[in-house]
């Protein structure tokens, strides 16, 4: 598993998914490289809001911090 050593990710940080995310984490599937914003956190687990180019939320996915990298 590829992980990236980085600063702690906190609320409102912009992050990139480092691996594909399945529907079990949200309403859709999102490929590695998808950009989103941390809107809530529970320790290591972050809730990522994925929005379109107009800022409209498309999905919320729950991801563990090691599977994210800061943008």
């Amino acid at each position, binding site marked *: 598993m590829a992980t990236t050593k980085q600063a702690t990710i906190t*609320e*409102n940080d*912009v992050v990139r998914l480092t691996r594909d995310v399945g529907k079990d984490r*949200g*309403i*859709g*599937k*999102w*490929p590695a490289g998808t*950009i*989103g*914003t941390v*809107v*809530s956190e*529970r320790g290591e*687990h972050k*809730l990522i*809001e*994925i*929005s*379109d*180019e*107009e*800022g*409209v*939320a*498309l*999905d*919320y996915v*729950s991801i563990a911090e090691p599977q994210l990298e800061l*943008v």
Partner: protein
Amino acid sequence: MNPDPSWPPRTGAPLPRAAEAYGVREKLAGYALDPAHKDGGPKAKGFATILGITLSDIDYLENTIRTAILQAPVSNVYIRARYGAQCEVKFPIAGLGAKSDRTVQVITGWEYADPGGPPRMTTAYLKPEKHHNRQPEA
């Protein structure tokens, strides 16, 4: 037993403990109204171009949201592992200045860190009537 009859949140019902909502100003300042935010910038641009609401109008938007959630029903409820109940509340919001004749739906997101506790705002954005967006993979 939870004595609060409004708990858990339900679609069509008022947002539980809406009067005690918190995190509104912080979320607006740090995300939804921040034009420099790398991902939230489009949200801020939407508020500015559609309704004339910018970061300098944060008092107006915060007060409008706080007032609206006392009346507006919950439009969606999501239960997510680790995050508990999360709610969406939609309501119309009027523009300012040259945009004061416009009213657009704003969508707000709320989470309950503790069951039965007060809600915390997680997001806010406008959804114009004609909207085209990308979709997740099938």
